[in-house]
């Protein structure tokens, strides 16, 4: 399994070329080959969602995809959310509403929520709960994550 393949995609708007084994996951390629360690690997079997990134604007598990499958795609990770020193409304809301404790699941929840709110800015609370049940958090008990996302949604609609 040592033959490497060249893969081209953009990450947070920047073109990237990586040479990876076909079996390398997108999560590992982002972390190890692109140096973007904000995407976290919590289970590597697609349940916890800590590794969620946006692939052509859709939230995906980067542990369940091979990097080669991202050829030509637009990938967005947590590192690309803030605009310089100005946090994205979701980042700001997580801070304001204590939506994180250890912070390990946070990048995955942020990217999941960005994907959901961009697609459906007026999403109702019940549907939002359903969408957020994709990811696991072990610290917060979710209540403040929900509060954060609802607050950010209101902010983003302004």
């Amino acid at each position: 399994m040592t033959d490497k393949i060249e893969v081209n995609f953009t990450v947070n708007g920047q073109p990237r070329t990586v040479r990876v084994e076909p079996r390398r996951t997108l999560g590992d390629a982002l972390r190890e080959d692109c140096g973007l360690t904000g995407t976290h690997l919590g289970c590597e079997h697609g349940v916890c969602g800590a590794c969620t990134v946006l692939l052509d604007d859709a939230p995906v598990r980067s542990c369940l995809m091979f990097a080669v499958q991202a050829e030509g795609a637009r990938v967005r990770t947590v590192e690309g959310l803030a605009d310089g020193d100005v946090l994205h409304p979701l980042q700001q809301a997580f801070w304001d509403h204590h939506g994180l404790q250890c912070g390990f699941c946070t990048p995955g929840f942020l990217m999941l929520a960005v994907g959901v709110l961009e697609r459906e800015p007026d999403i109702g609370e019940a549907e939002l709960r359903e969408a957020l049940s994709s990811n696991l958090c072990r610290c917060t008990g979710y209540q403040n994550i929900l509060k954060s996302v609802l607050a950010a949604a209101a902010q983003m609609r302004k």
Partner: protein
Amino acid sequence: MSLIGRSVRRLEDRPLLVGAGKFAADIRAPDMLTMRVVRSPIAFGWLTGFNLDEAFAHPETVAIWTGADVADIPPIGFRLTPVPGLEPYRQPVLAQEYVRYVGEPIALVFAADPYTAEDIADLVVPEIEPMAPCLDPTAPPSEFAPGLDTEAALITKAYGDLDAAFADAHAVVELELICGRHSGVPLETRGAIAVPDMASGILRMYGAAKVPHFNRQTIETMLGLPPGGIHLHEGHVGGGFGIRGELYPEDVLACAAALRLGRPVKWIEDRYEHLMTANQSRGQVHRVRAAVDERGFILGLDDEFWFDQGAYIRTHGVTVPDLTAAMLPGAYVVPAYRSVGHVRLTNKTPCGTYRAPGRFEGSFVRERLVDAIADRLGLDPIEVRRINFIPKTALPFRRNLETLGTDIVYDTGDYAGMLDKFLHSIGWEALRANAARRRQQGELVGLGLGFFVEKSGLGPFDDVRIVLESDGRIEVVTGAASLGQGVETVMAQICADGLGTGIDPIRVIHGQTDRIARGLGAFASRVTVMTGAAVTMAAEKLRHEMLAVAGRLLQTAPELLSVAGDRVIVNDAPDGPSLALAAVAQAAGGEIAAEATFTTPHMTYPYGVHVAQIRVERDSCAVVVERFFVGYDIGRAVNPMLVEGQILGGAVQGIGAALMEEFVYDDAGQPLSVTFADYLMPTIAEVPPIEVALFEDAPTPLNPLGVKGAGEAGINAVGAAIAAAVDDALGRPGAVRQLPITPSRLHALLRQKD
């Protein structure tokens, strides 16, 4: 205005929000090797050898180690609660003669690339002669090793005249109760990155957590390093809950490998490994009986329990059974008591502590028992609790038991008063009426309650050093640790409050063994109590010193000065002459430092109550938690938002423990819960609105701030409350005897009725 009691936003959040956190897997070093652990596929067997031919033949193999290569490294010892006779049950860093659980480290593979290291590990073939595993902790003890059986210890805690209590009893109520094996399961798996520095001769280990100073000293001893030969560094830690940060075989092995191979070594556990090797907890079977009078007052409580320790005794010694026995009586008088705990080795993953160790289990047992007493005597369960509460006037209350090397003395509290206040605040009677009405309409709806006494602030000491630097910044250095609970913010609030500054110039350093000589870390809900008290004392000293220096510069008596924000001002003339803190530090030669040590022989005892409202779905046999309420007296909350965050997170872990989470093993000892598809943790879909009522009616005199701990309040009695709620929904008191209440167990209960 004091910063204590304010819900300020956390100092630690920004890097975590922008993806700049440094968790274990994010650490890299040049020329780094991956360590991959080969694990036993057999629960119990004789390890006769290995076939390593293919593994060595792989072109990218750097090294392969088996037990013989590390036979000189002693087994891992005990950090807490050792009792005589436990030594033979310690875990070797790699299996030597026997394998004792599936997942036990038996060999190591080193290669540069992690994917390749995993390939090579697949080529390592262990030769194991399987033996019959011991899986039932209640079975008669069997042989662990020649001359040693599987009962490693017997924990007995008792006081009062139990025989007289049972002789005088109006009634005796007996129960057998089972608490399932589950654990903390932090979202970040374990990891250790050992980096040798050839120039200084110091080995640095990253990925440390919870108790870096203890682990540093232990690794030094185990590897025969000189004092100061290794330093541990805690980066961001993705949750701990008691299980992460204890010293495990892999931590020691990564350090040994880095030293012997002369290269940085990185070990990152995958989730499959985590679910069969990191500490598990909670597996207990209790046979409990109570002698009661006609009012339901407990005259005597007699408990015998079996603790499913797993394959070895790890760093916690007998902490979990010790706490179980010591804290089981809870908030009740219980004039005569005995608890006998059998610590039983089984061929499963070894156990340690998990958030509220011994209390989640003990509260389940005690509160189930109180509910059973009420049912037997036809009394209201709330009333039976009131009859049994230790009265406010009896506090401080000496329990005549000890745990973790301390005498249990409940310091402050008003249990009956708090329960009344809480039930009033949640509208208990209206909730009951509503549940009864819905039951009449055919729904299976119920309410359950659990009352508990927690413990927090385990000593015996904590050191803090605070430095005002020449640029006006303030550094607080502690031996505490952060697992994501908000240590930096809380310590900065306490420091700022003591100094009179804001929190912005304050940096809090924790978990770095090269920055402070000793430290106890973060466990037992101790940091806000112990480290917070030391910060209070050190800040007071530093403020005096700052004002003395400023007084000389301003030619004003120090008592006429105060600190306001980043300046020292004259009290009577806020617009008059003042000095920047930076200038004060510069005038003192560049910095001003103060150190303090807080010591205490006693823990402090917060208390609380949980109420669950649940609905049983007949078709799916699911238990839906509709609402959950927590009342908790914390003495004094430094940051109520963070306290509430601790409680919310704990409560949801408790819901998982009560309904979903269980490590299941088959008859051969094979673990069946090794993915997140098998080990089910709550998502937001399983979590109801949780309402937290914080009380500050019983501050403690045991520390300068009056604070008690928050970490374990959310989870303590969740199992008890949900079990009672399911009973209530089914209209069958005492129906729930076992946690978790999975759909299949509930199905069996519903069938029994039919």
